[in-house]
């Protein structure tokens, strides 16, 4: 029998020898970092070294920002129970005068914001209720299918700009004056440049806007193309959260400390039905943005935590050291049987 086995083998011998490569043999050179105690402490200290300065920088930047916030929604309304009725009545005089004090010197440009609270601009129904095509091209005027229920007028004419967002355009106005001299609010360049040049068409004009039975927010000048309606552009960039600020305009002069500023507000926008607050914010900005202590504090907190942990780890290693690769920690040495 022995001879048969030999004779039958060579005929079947098709070599399937794998080809050598470091990849297929799983022998690629590799770095195998090991989280040694020293490395842990080192990383934590590095984190502290990086984070604390950044935190300090951010805090100081935030410190340099001067911000004046004035909530006016409850002050600018007669203290009646008919707040909603008041605001909805087009006949009432909604002018309201507020006075602010500049706490510190504010350098130009100074930004004027309005801040709304409890306003769900991020509601799904709201966010999708717009037509980008219509905003850019006069040809797509009638593509309003996403805009319901503010797509078309009752008689089937397309509304430009259509949709809930545009319809609910914020329409409070602020007029600032300093020492009885009007402070010019520049409303140019408050929207992103890409919006002005590529999203809101230069030859798209508002049409049938706010003509329906329900009047939402502000009206638009039908003679000004959308590409110049920067208020609309800002409003149309929906905010991520129910509390948000939007840029109203810029003041191109410095304001000195303790200067009194008078604000004449046309309180038109209805936030009373959902108890939304309205605030006027006048603020400067630095590289970190507006007043934002949080980021600096978080940097400090993490840097500080790292430092504390580094110390704790060091102490633990001092008092309970474990030599690297100590075999007594191997499972078969730990539970001898």
């Amino acid at each position, binding site marked *: *029998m022995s001879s*048969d086995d030999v004779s039958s*083998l060579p005929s079947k011998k098709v070599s*399937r*020898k*794998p*080809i050598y490569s470091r990849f*297929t*043999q*799983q022998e*690629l*050179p590799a770095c*195998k970092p090991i989280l*040694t*105690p020293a490395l842990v402490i080192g*990383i934590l200290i590095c984190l502290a070294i990086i984070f604390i300065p950044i935190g300090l920088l*951010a805090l100081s930047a935030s410190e340099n920002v001067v*911000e004046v916030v004035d909530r006016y929604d409850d002050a600018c309304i007669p203290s009646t129970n008919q707040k909603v009725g008041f605001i909805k009545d087009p006949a009432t005089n909604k002018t309201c005068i507020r006075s602010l004090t500049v706490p510190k010197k504010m350098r130009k440009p100074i*930004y004027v914001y309005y*801040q709304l609270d409890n*306003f*769900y601009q991020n509601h799904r*129904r*709201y966010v999708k209720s717009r037509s*980008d095509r219509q905003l*850019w091209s006069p040809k797509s005027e009638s593509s309003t299918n996403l805009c*319901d229920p503010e797509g078309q007028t009752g008689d089937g004419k397309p509304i430009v700009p259509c949709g*809930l967002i545009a319809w*609910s355009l914020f329409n409070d106005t602020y007029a600032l004056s300093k020492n009885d001299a009007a402070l010019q609010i520049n409303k140019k360049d408050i929207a*992103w440049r*890409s919006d002005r040049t*590529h999203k809101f068409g230069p030859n798209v004009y508002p049409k049938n806007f706010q003509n329906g039975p329900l009047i939402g*927010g502000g009206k638009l000048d039908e003679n000004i193309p959308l590409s110049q309606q920067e208020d609309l552009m800002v409003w149309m*960039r*929906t*905010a*991520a*959260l129910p*509390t*948000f*600020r939007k840029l109203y305009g810029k003041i191109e002069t410095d304001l000195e400390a303790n200067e009194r500023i008078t604000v004449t507000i046309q309180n038109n926008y209805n936030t009373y039905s*959902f108890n939304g607050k309205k605030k006027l914010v006048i*603020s400067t*900005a630095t*590289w970190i*943005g*507006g007043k934002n202590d*949080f*980021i600096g504090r*978080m940097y400090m907190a993490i840097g500080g935590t790292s430092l504390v942990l580094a110390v704790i*780890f060091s102490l*633990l*290693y001092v008092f309970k050291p*474990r030599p*690297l690769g100590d*075999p007594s*920690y*191997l499972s*078969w*040495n730990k539970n001898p049987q």
Partner: protein
Amino acid sequence: MNGEREMPGRRKQKLKWSKLYTFSCLRASADDSAPADKLLGQPGFSRVVHCNEPQLHRSKPYKYSDNYVSTTKYNVVTFLPIALFEQFRRVANLYFLLAAILSLTPLAAFNRVSVVAPLVFVIGISMIKEAVEDWHRFLQDRKVNSRKVMVHVGDGLFVRKSWANLVVGDVVKVSKNEYFPSDLLLLCSSYEDGLCYVETMNLDGETNLKAKRSLEATLSLDEETAFCRFKATLRCEDPNPSLYTFVGNLDYNQESYPLSPEQILLRDSKLRNTEYAYGTVIFSGADTKAVRNSTRSPSKRSRVERKMDHVIYLLFGMMLFISLVTAFCSAIFTNDADVKRWYLQLHASDDSLFDPNNPTLSGFLQFVKALMLYGYLIPISLYVSIEVVKVLQAMMINNDLAMYDEVTGKAVEARTSNLNEELGQVEMILSDKTGTLTCNQMEFRKCSIEGISFGGEVTEVDLAASRRMNIDVERHRFSLDGSDSTARSIEMFDLSTADGSTEKEGLGLNEGGKGRNSRISISDKERRIKGFNFRDGRLMDKMWIYRSNVGEMVMFFRVMALCHTGIPVDDKTAYEAESPEEVAFLIAAREFGFKFCQRTQSTMVVQELDPMSGMEVMREYKLLNLLEFNSSRKRMSVIVSNEDGEIFLFCKGADEVIFDRLSEGGRTYQQATVMHLSNYAEDGLRTMVFAYRKVSVSEYERWSSVFAKAKATVCPERDELLENACEMIEKDLILLGAVAVEDKLQKGVPECIDKLAQAGLKIWLLTGDKKETAVNVGFACSLLRHDMEQLHLSTSNELRMKDVTEEIMSQLQSFNHVISEEERRDAPFALVVDGKALEHIFRNNHLCQHFLSVAMNCDVVICCRVSPKQKALITRRVKEHSGKTILAIGDGANDVGMIQEADIGVGISGMEGMQAVMASDFSLPEFRFLERLLIIHGHWCYRRISKMIVYFVYKNVAFGLTLFYYNMLSGVSGQELYDDWYMVMFNVLLTSLPVIALGVLEQDVSSDVCLQFPALYKQGQQNTCFSWKRIIGWICNAVLASLIVFTLTVSILSPSALDGRGNPADIEHIGTITYTCLIWTVNCQIALIISHFTWISHFLIWGSILCWYVFLYLYGALSPARSGNVYHISSEQIGPAPAYWATTLLVVVASLMPFFLHMAVQRSFFPLDDHIIQEMKHSKTDVTDSPMWLREQEKSKQLTQVGYSARVDAKIRHFKDQLHRKRKSFYLSVTNSRH
């Protein structure tokens, strides 16, 4: 005896075996045919075959299937529906299908493409994989089906046809060593009496050859031309899977002959020792018994994957929960917002998602929508990533050069990639013996003639033990101070002389391994003789003729040369016999100068070395009787008369049988022989005792007449009469000695078993062979050792069913008692059980439970004489009982059941048979590669896949939860924070590739360390990397990370301006920034868990992050019609804002901090084994402090009970005990003498 008549021409070679055999090969007696007659024609026995008229079966009413055998799962038509059905049996896929359908409705949370595309991709990849695997099966089938066989095409002409084209009724001619293409009726063979030998190893795993014989009526058909006119009709049973039964009738020449299984040649068995055989096809293709016996390979899923399903359910649960919360809150919000939130115009009621008039419906629709929105919690891409990773892993396994066998030219093949990680969790191995552990080849190793052992004295274990002890002592000596050293060196001497048998080697070991190596290299240089591995100068090269007791030696060699059933082939240099042992004896006899040259019907010619003259002379012996071997007799005798007319009886057999039959004067060497036998047996050698007696002519003649009478009897007592007759002559024997043959183990088997045992694997041996053989092999591969308590479970034949059950029960109870009561808990136990007992055990559920619990407590279990069915049954029962992962390994078709039943089936591809390989999940060229497959690849794959899954869960939960948080802040309206395309990219490009790198390249420790510390494998068995604790931990980590990322970004960015230009962030800005933080977090997280960075991993991790920025830039550069609000977002809006980058840094560090601290604390204070070993490797302790490194290796395996090293350890303990006792007695004697 008048010798053999010279046969005309072609019949010269023929032997009538039936004349030689005493017991077997009897013609079926007439009364056997009765049941067949009654049964035929009944339902189940309706098959009619017209022999040699295949064309008749093509048309009705027969329409028998052709001989094409298919193992594929699908065909071109069924592939699509079946494969699709299989895909949607995965819950997650079904969910995504529903989500895809819903995305076509107004409820869609995302755009359609982003939902449908991943699903199509995932399912497509899986189906392509299925198709490729099935294609491979098809190719394999084609290979088998295109094998060629000689088929009669009419007029006595035979042509080669492929197997697939055979039809029922065809007459085929099968040559020696060819497989039978289908189930055949044997018509005639090259032997005159129609006998032929078949090897059924592929069917039932039995290694001995089986004799089949044709009907006498068809004996005349032994020429090709004889088939011109051959016509016969066969009526028989319908196709069925029973291998051992056959009922049929052959109508030939107007006479009816009953058929029995003896005439049936089964597909997948092989013609052996027979030049050719003619047969006619009865069952073809799918009707054959072999195919009927095979079961479709079940699709197996790994333990990790099954657990992954539960993880997915958990995530489903989470998803349902947050969806419910969402729906509830949404209904409240919608209801509440009706009048107040005028800007939403909810009263318009145009959108039922926000219908204040029907908040319940809105809530429900929001719920459905939320299920889609939070679908990111269910990692759809996990499946596809796992598929990709597993295919790559399988590729790595297939290409491992260390698992390539130069001899056969085959490499390891992962035939399915589903089970890679299961390889790392195996707890039990059920192994076949023949062809898996052994080569099915016998080697003559040692012999003991007249009480002197030849062929090496010391066992390998003794050798290794004494070497190790010397090293130990040496180490001790160096570690102690000088004063003590002399005492120690004395001890060393003591140790090495503790056992007489190690004396020589122990002292000679100062040269260390050198001597051993040189010995091996010499033996390699020598001309290796197959079947003969014996080196002893006292016997070799005719040296034995100078010994004193030449006469007995001659007798010894004559037994070897004459007492067998072999015949010389190939110009008398090789032999063929029923069992490979006999071949080994014949070769050995030839080497000692007794060359068996020729066998005729009644004579045997041996070329003998004459010790007197030193010349070779031809001697002819007349063969008077051959009393053959069978399992109850356990011995075989020949009665021969030499040229001088002296009559001898030569006998060989099992020791106890022969020792019982020795004459008073023949026991001279019994004691020495017994000692040698036990030594041989411990080394795993198969032993056989030789004896002879001289029979006087008168005694022979008297006995001969008794024997002839017994032989002629036709009655049920015939066997008994024959037995008694044999007893009469097989007595008063003179013991000559014993021989030991080695059932040759495959290369590297003991070492492999050793490593596997150290890795905590239990090994069971399941074999169809008899108990002695199994136990021998157990010793040879160190599964058994001498100080092991062997528990033998068997049944006595006579008892009735109920008694047998009781008997087994009581045996089991006593075993249980022994195991549990034993104070020396560390004492190893081995359970040896035979197939018959198992049959009873598996019939009784209670017994079965009892048996399994005993078996689980034993270190080794050996099951012998088990049928293929039992193998499969044992596998299933053990799997069910223990819940452990079981690997079955085997090479033959008889192992197929076991291979399919086990969690992992491994087939040995080195041999010829393909059935086991076809059924297997992995195929190895040799058993030894199992070590590497499990301990390295299994370990790695397990860790890789587990890490990969938990990471996947992490990243998807972290991502999905941010959607939930945002939804809660957006009036619970279903608004997403991220752009649709960001979300599509998340799983497709931005986070998927590093995971794949992790799944393919990660190594906790390098391959050589895996092998040095097999104990690391236990991590997989204990499932440390994929325990619920770890999974929940990762989910918590994900929840924490998502909270940190979301709250921090939102609080930082709102409501004040984003940068110096005064614009506050809008929804796109915050979304993009949050998303950036998430991409960084999940990619850095994977960098934290990778411990093996190749350039590929670096490239993929950091490349993914870079990819995000590139994507963001490109997406923003598209026209606003496509990019919407993302237009110019990175270049104009957030890119220039320092807050963006500062937020990214802050958030990423903060979100990774908890995990980093966890990792630091764990590594520093609660390190795992792999951590420590990584550190040892890192600080190069293994090089600088190698004794420590080696010591830890030793320690890691100290609890192992099985395997070579455990055996050496046991031996050392034994020596030390002995030494201790000796010293004590010495001390006592000294103190006594002083008093």
